[in-house]
């Protein structure tokens, strides 16, 4: 086994704080979109904030999310992490298909993961596409539309130019569904390490233990 250092302390702290923000925003967001959920949750004995409280939580955590996102952008740009981990490279193209085949079939047959994360590149091409689209397209879209919602009179010029509140609302919600889909897949894929909790451990401790020999012989 060898230890591969993947996540800096800053990124690990950011990840978990951001995770809490996202989960709270998701729950309150669903509640705002479908107020009936509140009644349903109560019946299932889940604690869920009141509608009015949900509006407030969603608003202020929304600001927190905007800050969190800004921090992330600055961090990956300044630390060089963006250049190293996020930009697709020509060498990614042949792995792309293999990676997809591995997730769909290979994993059940016990074949080895075609991609081994290293400090010089922690994302496989599929991850680059997924994380890239979430962090560089979907999140900014949610954050910007959300901020515009915070004072529709102040931003009225921009909102009208964009096509009105309904369109703004639609963009915010479409982006949120895409985010949710990615989140569900993300939560599942984090169990796909060598051992079920390896990836989670890595996000806590920073490094991942990767077998030196090929996993099939293991």
């Amino acid at each position, binding site marked *: 086994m060898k230890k591969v250092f993947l996540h800096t302390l800053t990124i690990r702290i950011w990840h978990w704080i951001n995770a809490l923000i996202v989960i709270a925003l998701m729950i309150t967001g669903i509640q705002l979109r*479908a107020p009936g959920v509140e009644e349903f949750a109560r019946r299932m004995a889940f604690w869920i904030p009141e509608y009015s*409280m949900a509006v407030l939580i969603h608003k202020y955590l929304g600001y927190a999310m905007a800050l969190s996102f800004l921090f992330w952008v600055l961090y990956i740009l300044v630390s060089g992490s963006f250049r190293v981990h996020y930009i697709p490279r020509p060498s990614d193209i042949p792995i792309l298909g293999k990676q997809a085949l591995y997730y769909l079939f290979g994993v*059940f*047959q*016990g074949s080895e993961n075609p991609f081994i994360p290293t400090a010089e590149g922690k994302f496989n091409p599929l991850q680059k596409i997924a994380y890239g689209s979430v962090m560089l397209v979907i999140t900014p879209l949610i954050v910007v539309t959300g901020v515009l919602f915070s004072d529709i009179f102040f931003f009225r010029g921009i909102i009208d130019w964009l096509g009105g509140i309904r369109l703004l*609302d639609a963009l915010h919600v479409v982006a949120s*569904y895409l985010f949710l*889909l990615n989140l*569900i897949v993300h939560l599942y894929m984090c169990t796909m390490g060598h051992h079920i909790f390896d990836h989670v451990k890595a996000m806590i401790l920073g490094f991942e233990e990767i077998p030196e020999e090929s996993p099939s012989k293991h």
Partner: protein
Amino acid sequence: MPILVIIFLFLSSPVGAAVLSDDCFNCHEDFKKRTSHESIACTDCHLGIKEIPHEEKLARPTCNACHHKTFERYSAGIHKSKGLACNQCHEIHGKKKGTGTDCASCHPNVAHKALPSRGKHLAALNCVACHGKLDKSGITATVTLPKGATLDRKTVDRDGNGFANPAEWHAFEALLDQKFKGYKLEKQYWAYGDNHEIMPKAADCGECHEKRTRFTSAEGRINDVTSYSVQITPRVFIPEFPSLREFPKTVHGQKGVRCTDCHISKDKITDKVCVRCHEQVYHTYEKSIHAKKGATSCTDCHNPHLIKTYKEFNAKERIAICSRCHKDYITRHEWLPNTKLHFDYLECTTCHSPGSEKSMVFFFADKKNNKKNPLQYEALEQVFGQDVHLKSVINTYAENMVKGEEIGRFVVDLKKKMGEGIFVDAEIIVTKVHHDYSVTRLKERNCITCHSPQAHFYNSMYLILPEKDQHIYVPVKGTLLSVYPIGMALDIYLLGEEKITKDDIYALLGKAPEGSTAYAKSLGFKLIDLVGVILVILVILSILAHALLRILVKR
């Protein structure tokens, strides 16, 4: 030689010849210790003493030889005419120097039964404020902000004219309540006059409340890190008194109510007076939280002397009534997205009085320097001529209702005549009042309650037109969008409708008469939810399948 002349003159002067006070003290020993008038001789007041022993009967000393100015004022006042002498208030040889006794020593606990709002008046004013001729009077409102807080002069005097009018001052007080917890506001009604000139009759109410010959100026002192003063209209602190001239214009006056119908005694009007006519309304109100908590009587919200009727108040003015007590209404509604924006278009009872009838109302307004002002009759009269009935100008078919197109056409015309700032403004207000305001924590805190075509006030729309003496409400025919064809209205109207509902789903599952596909196409933005939820379910199912397979092959 000249020295001898001076000595001679000195010895022959009357001072030298008169009786010395020390000689008086040989008999009147007590007066040696006198504490007032101690610098003058006994014979300066007790005239006619040429030698000792003096005659038994002497003339009464008079004060006016020295105190002639005071005496003049005293002569004009009631104390002189009642035969009160100086020494009845002043101790001439007194222990204390120069003090007259205060009013209460002769007039203790004056009931002031005839004085309306007795407590307020007596707490704030001294005796001369009403009973004396005033030399100087005014109001000083001192605002002390919490330590370290600062407030710009412009927050008090918004238009920068050096004068805070009632609107500016009330806005300032609201701001203090909201943002500067722990601030202090002390009002001082100071009045300086001469206690000697007490008038036979107290000043009448109108001197302060109508003609304003007393307390003619008011000053606000704001003590923050620095300290500065702003002049304030005294009307802010001393309310306008309803004058007989204006009363016939009020609703009560128009209906023939006379002063004495309500003012049966000099006491403050209580609910018992109102209930004699407004019985039904009062019984509704009686059962509400307001009445039960005993916090509010009719006159706390309603001013029976007001010329404007409730109908003529716009949303902002209606909120102003409630916010006199519920000052924290903005912070309490922070949950409401875009709180302030909502309160520009709603009044409190739009939500808090479920029994009331609410309507969408439209009115013409002028936008100048980013301030919206509803058009008044006087302005319209200048354009359309005297005694114009706007309804007949707008409504060419002379029906009972106006149509959206008619309003639109009229606004275009009005813009040409009165400038580009003219527009149609809208509010959602109560048009038929129900007096139960008990509903506080609304269960329907849900955007769709208002932001959907199902909200009932979209079916009850009125155009408010200012007429000569009143506002009239003309019913509007058509849909909101035909009256108010701007993007914002469309957005607000339909915003809550973008969400898919249970009924939509049932309809899609084959119960829609026009077929599922056609129904799905008609859903518009609601399709986002439909597609979104289906995708989420599909993804979860595939993940479950993937996980199951992994468990089966033990990977």
